[in-house]
């Protein structure tokens, strides 16, 4: 095969993917970007973008050309000082990244996750049955989508009861800071300052409850030769990325099921579809919409020359609805084989908590199928605008108990 000549003109787009308008409803802009070309430039920020499945997958897979150590947000760590010490996982490259990641994969194994299932399911059943029995209008976000992960996740990590309200603002802050210094970024830093103090306190070796994930990470990190500061930073990754994302996944699932009664009927009829329904939610709604990479060298992508040091914005959410890859991509179909989407990323930086997220999603949706006969919208949902995440602030619903 001969290489394509590196002469293709790059479409220049005037879109702002971090504007309120875009964040509120990104789908038509995603289509515009996919159709503009395999690679495009976002004039406003001087960055490249990819929105088709193939190009997003290629950038994710080639972690040597498209590095993470220069930050996975708009800011280039080679020229700007990061607002917090970089993550040893998210914002690192092999071989350092490989070592840190191995500490975590050795702990968060499929066997460990299997051992959690029974307990997670009991708590999901208890919560959903209780909320469904209440009758009237409920908020799918605070009553369910936040309530369930905020019960099981901090217990699993070994965090104290007091202060758990800091988890959501901290996560929201971290994901906002991958964008430009807009209103969301600045507000997130303001709100997150207090949360940050609590989070860093919980991350210190010796603080998490013995037997939980936190202590296990500290111990394994110490054995791998990491000092106390790095042990804390490894646990910080979980508290940054493990809560808001799952909350949004569950909230978005409720929204999709309420909007598609025939899909909820299918789930009710066969609760074993719960895991596949969660997978489809992650594809369809992409709680993590975007991430950046930075080119470590001059390269070429689908005929477009990229200079060294270019920021490349991957629209994961757009790739997850690329008609080149998916049949009827804009339809929410819980029986679809959604595996292979890039909602959790792919390759060496694939989301470390993805199997935990799937477990939480599966247990929650199983409980929903068991204890709820019908689920209807009861008002306008309120979108939570975040530079990276897609989720809801509130979702008024009317549930009928089964």
């Amino acid at each position, binding site marked *: 095969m001969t290489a394509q000549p590196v002469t293709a003109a790059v479409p220049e787009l005037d879109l702002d993917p971090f504007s309120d308008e875009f964040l509120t409803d990104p789908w038509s802009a995603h289509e515009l970007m996919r159709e503009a070309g395999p690679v495009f430039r976002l004039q406003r920020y001087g960055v490249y973008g990819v929105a088709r499945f193939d190009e997003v997958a290629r950038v994710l897979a080639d972690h040597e050309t498209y590095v993470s150590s220069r930050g996975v947000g708009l800011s280039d760590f080679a020229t700007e000082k990061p607002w917090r010490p970089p993550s040893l996982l998210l914002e690192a490259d092999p071989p350092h990244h490989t070592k840190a990641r191995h500490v975590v994969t050795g702990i968060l194994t499929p066997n460990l996750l299997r051992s959690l299932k029974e307990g997670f399911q009991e708590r999901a059943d208890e919560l959903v049955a209780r909320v469904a029995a209440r009758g009237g209008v409920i908020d799918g976000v605070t009553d369910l989508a936040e309530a369930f992960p905020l019960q099981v996740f901090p217990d699993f990590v070994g965090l104290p009861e007091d202060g758990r309200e800091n988890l959501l603002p901290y996560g929201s802050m971290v994901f906002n800071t991958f964008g430009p210094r807009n209103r969301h970024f600045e507000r997130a830093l303001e709100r997150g300052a207090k949360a940050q103090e609590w989070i860093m306190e919980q991350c210190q070796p010796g603080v998490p409850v013995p037997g939980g994930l936190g202590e296990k990470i500290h111990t394994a990190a110490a054995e791998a030769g990491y000092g106390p500061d790095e042990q804390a930073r490894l646990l910080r990754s979980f508290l940054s990325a493990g809560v808001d994302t799952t909350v949004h996944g569950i909230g978005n699932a409720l929204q999709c099921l309420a909007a598609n009664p025939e899909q909820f009927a299918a789930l009710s009829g066969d609760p074993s579809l719960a895991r596949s329904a969660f997978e489809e939610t992650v594809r369809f709604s992409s709680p993590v919409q975007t991430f950046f990479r930075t080119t470590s060298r001059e390269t070429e992508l689908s005929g477009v020359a990229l200079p060294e040091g270019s920021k490349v914005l991957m629209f994961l959410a757009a790739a997850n609805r690329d008609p080149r890859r998916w049949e009827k991509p804009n339809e929410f179909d819980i029986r679809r084989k959604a595996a292979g989407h890039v909602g959790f990323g792919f390759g060496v930086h694939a989301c470390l908590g993805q*199997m935990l997220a799937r477990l939480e999603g599966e247990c929650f949706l199983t409980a929903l199928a068991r204890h709820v006969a019908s689920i209807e919208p009861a008002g306008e949902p309120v979108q939570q605008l975040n530079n990276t995440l897609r989720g809801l602030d509130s979702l008024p619903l009317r549930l009928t108990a089964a």
Partner: protein
Amino acid sequence: MPKVTFIQPDGMETVLETDTGTSVMRTAVSRGVPGIVAECGGSAMCATCHVYVEEPYLDGLPEISDVEDEMLDCTSSERCPNSRLSCQLKVASDIAVRLPETQV
């Protein structure tokens, strides 16, 4: 093009041609061969693309990495000496794999 043979637990065989460098997992998933779940899409995180490589094809396979080794300890069906994660097997020449009874 190299051929990949998938043998179901009941003995039924599917033979597919695939591009060199494509993984055994991707070959199965993209052509709808049942028995490989591959939830994580090939990031060696879910242990649901477990296969048993048939004896004549064991030589010349890529070595099992530490991460794959840990994942193979977590497979739903029993781990055997010829167990591999099919997402980690890039097809270089003909290969035959037997599928386990369960993946999850």
